[in-house]
Every structure is written in structure tokens, then in C-alpha cells.
């Protein structure tokens, strides 16, 4: 099935332009906010200042371009609500990315480490860690990501295990939220929400319907919607123009491909 007329390199250039041009000349396309993003936003709004939430970066470096904006929007909202944040990660590559995002936003919002937020770092065996957090955070993570003893951090004075954590948010590009639901949610009853890459939405929509997940934001479109609710323009909003133009470019390609195909068939 050789390409009838267009050489594939022409397609590549066309697609790159379809993505690059809207970045250079933003249009500002804005879609409506979906029910699940609005529900997630209401969930964070319902938490009181000073409440502690746990954010786990369960994603790989390769998909940060899509999952990073989702994480940024959610953390931005949490910090605006003056929630206290404890960070962890169950995928080795996500660890450094999560720490860098949290510390960047923390300095922007004048949040002090140890007081308003802390980062526990990476655990390879995630099931054991999820169950351990149900017994005692300090026993499961004696040292935090910066190698300091966890007891010395004031944030852990009042926070002993899931009982004092109001919400767990798994920032994931694969199936980790399923284990959070089964082990943390199922056994300890702590509410679980998830920030996902778009491809995982079909996998976890059933969990939202059955209330095993209390909130779900997915893909760059989800990040753009969340930024709209927060009244900020971030990578999500900027991305919407490029996404739309890229999708349209591919649709035009498919139509052109079929047109050439039919003209070729009618001739033979």
C-alpha cells in the first residue's frame, strides 16, 4: 500500500506546521468545560484551607508533555485553596518531575517546605507502600525525598495516616489509579481522584460512574478546561489551538487520501 501521491515527508512537514503555527500565532479556541472537570474543580473547592491532600506522581518522563499540564492545574488550584500537599511517586521517572513541579509552584505561592508541603519520594513496591501509608506515613517513609527525617517536618505532626488525609490524587499515564482504588480506597476508605492522560480515560470512566473514583481530569483538553475554571492560560489552553489544527490536518489528509484512492480506482 504505497502512498499514492504525497510523500510521507510532506505529511510530516504539514503536521509540524499544523502544530507549530498555532503556537506562534495563538487563536485562543476555547471549548466548553466537561462535567468531570467541573466536578473535580468542585471537589477541591469543597476542601477547607489547611486540609492535607496526597498527590502521587505515577507517570513516566515520556508522557510529561500531556500529564504535566494536568498536574500543574490541579496543584495550582490546591495551593490557591491553601491546602497542604504531601507528594509521593511510584514510578522512578515521575519522582524528579513531581518534585520539580511542586517546588516551582510552592516558591511561586510562598509555600514553605515542611510546613505547607512535603515530598516523600519514590517507592518501587507500590502495593506495600499504599498499605503502609494506611498504618503510618512516618514508618513507611522514615526519610523524605531530601533525605531529612520525616518526623522533623511539622506537616506530619497532625498527619499520621490516611485518616488525616482528605483526598488522594494519582497523576497517572497508566493503570496505577486502579491499585490506589483497590488498596488505599478499598481497604482504608480514603477518597481517590485521578489526573490522567487522555488514552486512559476509557479505562477509568467506569470507576467514576461506580464512585470508586471521586474525581477525574484527563488529557490536555482536561488541563485546558481546568485552566479555564481557574482563569489562567497555561499549557493546556495554548495546546487546544494546536490540537484542533492537528486534528483538522489529519482529517483533511484522510479525505484527500480517499479522494486520490477513488480517482485511481475509477481510472483503472
Amino acid at each position, binding site marked *: 500500500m504505497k502512498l499514492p501521491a504525497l510523500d510521507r515527508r510532506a505529511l510530516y512537514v504539514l503536521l509540524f506546521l499544523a*502544530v507549530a503555527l498555532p*503556537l506562534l500565532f495563538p487563536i485562543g479556541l476555547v471549548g466548553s468545560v466537561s462535567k468531570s472537570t467541573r466536578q473535580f474543580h468542585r471537589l477541591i473547592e469543597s476542601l477547607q484551607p489547611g486540609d492535607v491532600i496526597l498527590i502521587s506522581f505515577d507517570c513516566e518522563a515520556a508522557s510529561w*508533555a*500531556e500529564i504535566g499540564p494536568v498536574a500543574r492545574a490541579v496543584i495550582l488550584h490546591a495551593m490557591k485553596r491553601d491546602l497542604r500537599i504531601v507528594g509521593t511517586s511510584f514510578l*522512578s521517572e515521575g519522582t524528579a518531575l513531581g518534585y520539580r513541579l511542586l517546588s516551582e509552584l510552592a516558591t511561586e505561592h510562598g509555600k514553605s517546605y515542611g510546613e505547607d508541603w512535603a515530598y516523600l519520594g519514590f517507592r518501587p513496591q507500590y502495593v506495600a507502600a499504599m498499605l503502609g501509608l494506611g498504618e503510618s506515613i512516618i514508618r513507611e517513609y522514615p526519610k523524605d525525598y531530601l533525605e531529612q527525617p520525616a518526623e522533623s517536618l511539622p506537616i506530619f505532626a497532625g498527619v499520621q495516616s490516611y485518616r488525616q488525609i482528605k483526598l488522594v490524587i494519582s497523576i497517572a499515564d497508566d493503570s496505577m489509579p486502579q491499585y490506589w482504588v483497590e488498596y488505599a480506597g478499598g481497604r482504608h476508605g480514603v477518597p481517590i481522584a485521578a489526573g490522567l492522560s487522555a488514552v486512559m480515560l*476509557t479505562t477509568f470512566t467506569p470507576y467514576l460512574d461506580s464512585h470508586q473514583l471521586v474525581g477525574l481530569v484527563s*488529557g*490536555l483538553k482536561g488541563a485546558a478546561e481546568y485552566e479555564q475554571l481557574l482563569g489562567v492560560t497555561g499549557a493546556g489552553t495554548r495546546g487546544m489551538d494546536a*490540537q484542533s489544527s*492537528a486534528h483538522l490536518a489529519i482529517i483533511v489528509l484522510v479525505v484527500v487520501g480517499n479522494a486520490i484512492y477513488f480517482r485511481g480506482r475509477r481510472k483503472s
Partner: protein
Amino acid sequence: MSEPAIWISALCTLAIYSFLYRDNPVYRAAEQILVGLSVGYLVVITVRSTLIPRVWTPATDGNPWAFVAAALVLLMWTRLHPKAGWLSRLPLALVVGAGAGLSIPALLKARVTSQMAAVLTPTPDFNTFVGALGVITTLAYFHFTRPRTGVFDGVARVGTWYLMIFFGATFGFTIMSRISLLLGRSEFLLGTWLGILP
């Protein structure tokens, strides 16, 4: 990121993208560096997070179970020796056997019974029937020991339509994730590196 780091990352990105034009020495060099680094990364993380805490440290403390683990590791490494290579079949057997035993109840529940339960929704509606019809006709498509004749062929064909809807939806659905990856790289190249974004 500091200035040199941005330049190095940008050059690596362009080296990989050069493959889109065609396979060339620059891409090949970048590929070999990436593969070498990734093998190094995995070996370091594995040694530090599994082999040292699970085998080396307990063994030095004299824990008997650690010697069993050490034996399994050495049996695996007999693979490198031409003659004794067959000994590595023992740890392989452990992994294959344990894997089979563990997967039977797990896969049966995750893939068969819970999928069937999800079809029988407590409040059946139009979607429930469309869904049930889809599962049943797809199962007919996966029927191997009966020739495709008459009514059965019709049912299997409807199953094929459902499969095509699934593949079309998955394809269309995943395009958004893939485009956002290119978006991320473009923002890095045009913004962070060249600084020409608004």
C-alpha cells in the same frame, strides 16, 4: 534548565527527529547513546532498589533466605556460561510456574467475570442491549471450531462491525495524546530553546 543543558537536550531532540527524513549516522549515534544510557539507568536502579536491599544486605546479615535469593541470581547468570546455561531453566521455571498459578484466579476475575458483570447493569436500558449484543457477537467472531456458514456467519459479521467501531474509536481517541507529545517537544524547541513563542 541551564543554558548548556537546553542546548544538549535540543540537539538530542533534533538528532532523533532526523530519523523522519531517513536513517542517518546522526540518528544512529543518538540511538546508540539513548540505548546505552537506558541500559545503564535500569542496571543502576535495579541494583540499588532490588539487588542490594533484597539480596546483598540481608545476605551480609546472615539471613538464610537471602542465600536462596543469591542462589537464584547466580542460577540466572549461568546463562552467560556456554555449558552450564541450562541451569538458568530453574529460575525460569519458577517464574513461569508461579506466573501461571497466580494468573488463573486474577485473569479469570479481571477479564471474564467482572466483564460479564459489567454487561448486566442493574438498570437495563437501550445502551445495555447495544452493549450485550456487542459482547455476544464479538464472542461469535472469536469462534474457531465452527465453519463460518449461514446465520452464524451473519452474527460473526456484526461482531466484526463492533470491533471496527472499537478500533476506530481507540485510534481517534489516542490521536489527542500523541499530538500533545509533539506539542510538548515543539514548545520546548520553539519556546525554551529558540524563545520565539509569545
